[in-house]
């Protein structure tokens, strides 16, 4: 049986306070002084209500790398972080380059129920950058793929990138480009600068990202296609994006929480938890990325949640895997880097982490402005909380978080997906209960 909830005294993103009644997967009533009428009461005084967060860039690792994460464990991490939808990257084994794989990932997500899983399709077969994958088949599959990306690898061949942009336009999709010139970044280990030279680690120069973005925005303009740039990491990239948007090019950009908070100085420890691609950059880059978020040059925040087992990080820096988990910490890092610093308000957070990623990913009927009748995907966070981020905060399979031991603001208290709770008082709801609610929701809405 569907549970009714009455959220009492929540602060909405626009700053107003309201009660919210949830029933049958929808917001059915809002206002003040609402009566319980048998609904389960959620005391949200002091909590901010956000539309369910949407992550356009998640690595769920299934199929193929289940020792790092599964669709179930990754969506549990998502729920703990306040996310109600995640876009699952294509670099699985096998690669998500056929309708079979994307449909499998989609159905695993549907069954688990912790979040809406939207598979991303590979642009090229096996992410090899040589031939287009079955983009049309994936778009027309039950998974209805709308975002295509070779993330982890750059579509570096200019002609292939042009064709991909044109072909995906046919299906109203978008290419999400991992901008990295492969020749300029051979064996690269960290941001190229005086510090990489001192530490003796091969550099990943900013120009390797900026030159690809510059080429791709011009290609998108030339063929009239839509383009999304993954994980912008440099001040120069923000400049190129600002120029492209001023020119009217249909391009969007994302930044990760870690690039908004952390810098390359952390690499001095040679602790591979700080090894990520694109790498942590300089202070100037962090400030430029924050300014890019503030003025709208950067459209969204996406986690690039990249789980790895301990053995992939507990080793020499240049042997270690690239990537950090980020779902559980994303909203806290966003608050710490952008809200507490006065750069954005909660309305902007709702845009950056819900409305805009849903729009770019063509995720219909998911996010909202808390109007009656809206889908009840809701996150409640306590902005007054401040705590040391620890292993207990990590609920996915992997522990490769750069924030362990750091003090972060905010704490996600409740997450509702399709009107049922996935996180209650900071504790994940039991998998069987969530799966049962998910089945019920599909039966009535599917």
């Amino acid at each position: 049986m569907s549970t009714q909830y009455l959220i009492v005294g929540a602060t909405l993103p626009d700053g107003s306070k309201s009660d919210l009644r949830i029933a049958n997967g929808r917001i059915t009533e809002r206002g003040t002084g609402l009566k319980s009428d048998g609904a389960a009461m959620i005391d949200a005084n002091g909590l901010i209500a956000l539309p369910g967060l949407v992550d356009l860039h998640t690595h769920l690792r299934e199929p193929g790398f289940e020792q790092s994460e599964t669709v179930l464990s990754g969506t549990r991490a998502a729920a703990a972080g306040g996310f109600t939808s995640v876009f699952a990257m294509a670099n699985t084994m096998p690669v998500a380059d056929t309708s079979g794989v994307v449909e499998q990932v989609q159905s695993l997500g549907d069954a688990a129920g912790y979040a809406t899983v939207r598979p991303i399709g590979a642009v090229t077969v096996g992410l090899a950058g040589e031939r287009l994958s079955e983009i049309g088949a994936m778009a027309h599959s039950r998974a209805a793929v709308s975002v295509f990306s070779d993330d982890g690898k750059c579509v570096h061949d200019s002609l292939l990138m042009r064709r991909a942009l044109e072909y995906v336009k046919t299906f109203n999709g978008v290419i999400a480009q991992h901008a990295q010139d492969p020749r300029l970044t051979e064996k690269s280990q960290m941001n190229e600068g005086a510090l990489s030279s001192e530490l003796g680690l091969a550099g990943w120069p900013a120009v390797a990202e900026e030159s690809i973005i510059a080429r791709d925005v011009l290609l998108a303009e030339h063929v009239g296609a839509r383009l999304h740039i993954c994980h912008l990491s440099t001040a120069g990239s923000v400049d190129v994006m600002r120029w492209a948007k001023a020119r009217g090019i249909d391009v969007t950009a994302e930044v990760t929480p870690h690039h908004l908070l952390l810098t390359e100085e952390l690499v001095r420890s040679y602790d591979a938890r700080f090894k990520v691609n694109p790498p942590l950059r300089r202070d100037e880059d962090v400030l430029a990325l924050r300014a890019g978020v503030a003025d709208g040059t950067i459209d969204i925040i996406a986690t690039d949640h990249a789980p790895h087992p301990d053995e992939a990080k507990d080793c020499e820096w240049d042997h270690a895997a690239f990537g950090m988990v980020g779902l559980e910490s994303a909203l806290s890092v966003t608050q710490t880097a952008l809200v507490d610093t006065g750069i954005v308000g909660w309305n902007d957070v709702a845009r950056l982490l819900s409305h805009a990623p849903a729009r770019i990913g063509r995720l219909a009927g998911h996010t909202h402005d808390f109007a009656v009748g809206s889908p009840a995907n809701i996150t409640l966070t306590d902005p007054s909380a401040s705590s040391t981020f620890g292993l207990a905060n990590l609920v996915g399979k992997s522990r490769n978080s750069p924030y362990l031991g750091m003090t972060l603001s905010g704490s996600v208290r409740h997450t509702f997906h399709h009107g049922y709770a996935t996180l209650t008082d900071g504790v994940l709801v039991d998998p069987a209960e969530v799966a049962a609610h998910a089945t019920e929701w599909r039966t009535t809405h599917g």
Partner: protein
Amino acid sequence: MRHLLSTKDLSRDDAIMILDVAEDMSDVQLREVKKLPTLRGKTVVNLFFEDSTRTRISFELAAKRLSADVINFSAKGSSVSKGESLKDTAQTLAAMGADGVVIRHSSSGSPQLLADSGWIDAGIVNAGDGTHEHPTQALLDAFTMRRRIHGAASRGRDLSGVSVLIVGDILHSRVARSNLWLLRTLGAEVTFVAPATLLPFGAETWPAGIRYDLDAAIAEVNPDVVMMLRIQSERMNAAFFPNPREYARVWGLDDERLARLRPDTIVMHPGPMNRGLEISSRAADSAQSTVIEQVANGVSIRMAVLYLLLSGDREGSA
């Protein structure tokens, strides 16, 4: 001292202490019986993930002259080549009671990882990590310079006012990095000379002069020391310079350039040398060359480092 991981973090006092203890160790090597009982009962492991016969035997000799038991653990033919992790190797050595680990590794930062990880409690000596640091090489180079310049009055002295040219593949050289930090700490002036392709990105922010032209550097800097670096064969085909002939012509210490140095300018090379490429035979074998002294001094420096790290009760050492 607990570990020796880099010269960047080495204080002037500690550096001079190492050099002075090395003077004592050098005196011991002039005796008929070259062995000291200092590290009797201690076990030193030479953990070499990268081939380097010269450095390994230098450390081995140093440890043996201090009466330590020495185990040579080479990646080739050991479990490491079968995929065993650094963590497991370190924990194995810890379980066997290693007191000191001398590590050579192609991955920058590996010695620091061993020191910080908690996998092993031994004193760690960096014997060269990737393109990061090679602190004992820099210490033996400084020791060699100090002896040539100050002779018997070396003890307690630094290298104030000494000007050093370091010539060649700075980009890939851990020797150049360790030398820069240590020489600056000891008061010397350092100038890097190389084609722009072989200078580290951002080196202009380092406390070193940067020059492209070796002839102008010799004429204008009037160096007390010219240190030539080895050109690795794998750089030859990677667009760092057109070919070895052009490199030798523009950046090699050939006979003509040797003749233009002051008679008391020291010529150094960390070895092994490419005779005819970065250095001519005549320059390498000249009276100004310290190449052989560097090898002998290497043993004294490594004895000093092992002595300072491993002698006595390590619990109380900082």
